[in-house]
């Protein structure tokens, strides 16, 4: 097993280099004095200053955050209720609804994008933040349901009966018993929904309207007309925020594990 250890480590390193290369490039060039992104000429913070006066870019960032946060909150709410409901109750057509829920997971994003666009056009809805949010909810909900269901399946639902027997009503049972029990699934579902929303290009491309450009759409347009180095600065800041959130959440997890271990 220990044979060729260095070669194996080299291979692992090269794959990571491949995965991180474009991100490292953008971070390095965000500090570059040359605006042309060709070779590194010198260190500057100029682009970070410029970023805060670039209203188009900031507007796109604002739209991205609004769409991601609102769609995550709504899809987490509906998805969690649905995962619980679909496990608890039987009804006519349940099988069919369950099958439908896999459709956004498996069909190519572009197909979902153009179907939603066609329906918005049919209903004469103006494309904008509203249609963007609805579209992001449309592709996020199934992922939330899958995440919550995974935890739900491994949870002992007898505690729910116990809560009922002890006199808790449906609402109390839900908020005080079921939700805390499946919290890890809800959190991972919400994280997944948020990430998918931040990462989406294809569905947003078809369902955003003039004035509701998200960051990726804005950058897509800029790549064709010429991109400015403040985009690198913004990307670097976003990576920093994401890394911080990730480190904090893994620290919390480690602490929790230690606490449980100490018990």
């Amino acid at each position, binding site marked *: 097993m220990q044979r060729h250890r260095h070669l194996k480590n080299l291979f692992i390193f090269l794959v990571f280099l491949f995965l991180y290369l*474009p991100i490292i490039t953008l971070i390095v060039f965000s500090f570059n004095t040359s605006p042309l992104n060709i070779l590194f000429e010198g260190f500057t913070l100029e682009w970070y200053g410029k970023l805060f006066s670039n209203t188009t870019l900031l507007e796109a960032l604002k739209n991205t955050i609004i769409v991601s946060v609102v769609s995550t909150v709504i899809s987490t709410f509906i998805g969690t209720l649905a995962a619980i409901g679909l496990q608890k109750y039987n009804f006519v057509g349940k099988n069919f609804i369950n099958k439908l829920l896999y459709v956004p997971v498996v069909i190519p994003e572009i197909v979902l994008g153009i179907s939603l666009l066609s329906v918005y056009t049919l209903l004469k809805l103006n494309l904008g933040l509203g249609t963007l949010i609805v579209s992001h909810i449309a592709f996020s909900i199934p992922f939330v349901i899958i995440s919550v269901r995974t935890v739900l399946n491994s949870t002992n639902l007898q505690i729910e009966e116990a809560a009922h027997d002890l006199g808790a009503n*449906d609402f109390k049972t839900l908020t005080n018993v079921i939700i805390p029990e499946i919290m890890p699934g809800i959190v991972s579902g919400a994280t997944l929904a948020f990430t998918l929303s931040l990462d989406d290009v294809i569905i947003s491309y078809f369902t955003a309207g003039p004035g509701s450009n998200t960051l990726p759409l804005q950058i897509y347009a800029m*790549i064709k007309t010429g991109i400015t180095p403040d985009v690198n600065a913004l990307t670097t800041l976003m990576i920093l925020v994401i890394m911080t959130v990730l480190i904090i959440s893994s620290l919390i997890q480690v602490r929790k594990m230690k606490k449980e271990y100490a018990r």
Partner: protein
Amino acid sequence: MKNKSKFLYLSPIIIYAIVLILFPILYILFLSFQTNDNYGGIIYSLTLNNYIKIFDIVYLRVLFKSASIAFITIVICILISYPFCIFISEKKTNVQKILITLVMVPFLTNSLIRTYGWIVLLRKEGVFNSILQALNICDGPISFMYNNLGVFIGLVYTLLPFMILPVYSSVSKIDKKVLEASKDLGANAYHTFTKVILPQTLPGIFNGSLMVFIPAIGMFFIADLLGGGKIMLVGNLIKNQFLVSRNWPFGAAISIFLIVITFLLVKLYKKTGGNMDDLGGF
């Protein structure tokens, strides 16, 4: 009382499934039988012409090329992921967890932004070419992008984690004791691999291939940006029908065609023992 909470739990999801999944797809199906009026409008009719048009040699070529690109992308992803996952699974459990998280981190930034990072690296006056020229390795700039190579780099890069995660989860499930038993019973490395490791990891590879194939035929922005508009994926074809030539019925027919292919692939996946939730779990 019981019925009231049942209604509260289930009505949002039923409305969602019907309004945002079923209805849009039925509407696309309806559109695919209509006729385009050349001005971006629709003439109501019942025709199979849009489906017949898919089998026109021009469009068949796009479908075939896009499928081949997706297939080669899958093969490259397997060739990278498989050894990568096996090497990682030989590490300590804690290290494994950290490394797999590190695979996911770049994917928390938007795929378009990362594609832009590749443009900075690959273009004619980009980082790679500047380095090569500074070192006098070659005379003129090398075309890393605006060709097939650029599209492959972009697709493999964007879709690699979709292969790594399922392959890793199947590799890490292999019981180390079974490998030892195989060794003790006299199997050499080759036989241990083909008879023990490979069969157990095939479901993971198949899961990964499905998760790479489906986006790989649709990622029009990678073909646009790194292929320079010279390479058409099925995604570009659909996008053009909807936004450029404004022939929505034909675009709808291609979409229905894609849905049918996807469903056939998913059926095959389920038949070979695949779990549907694995397709959406990360």
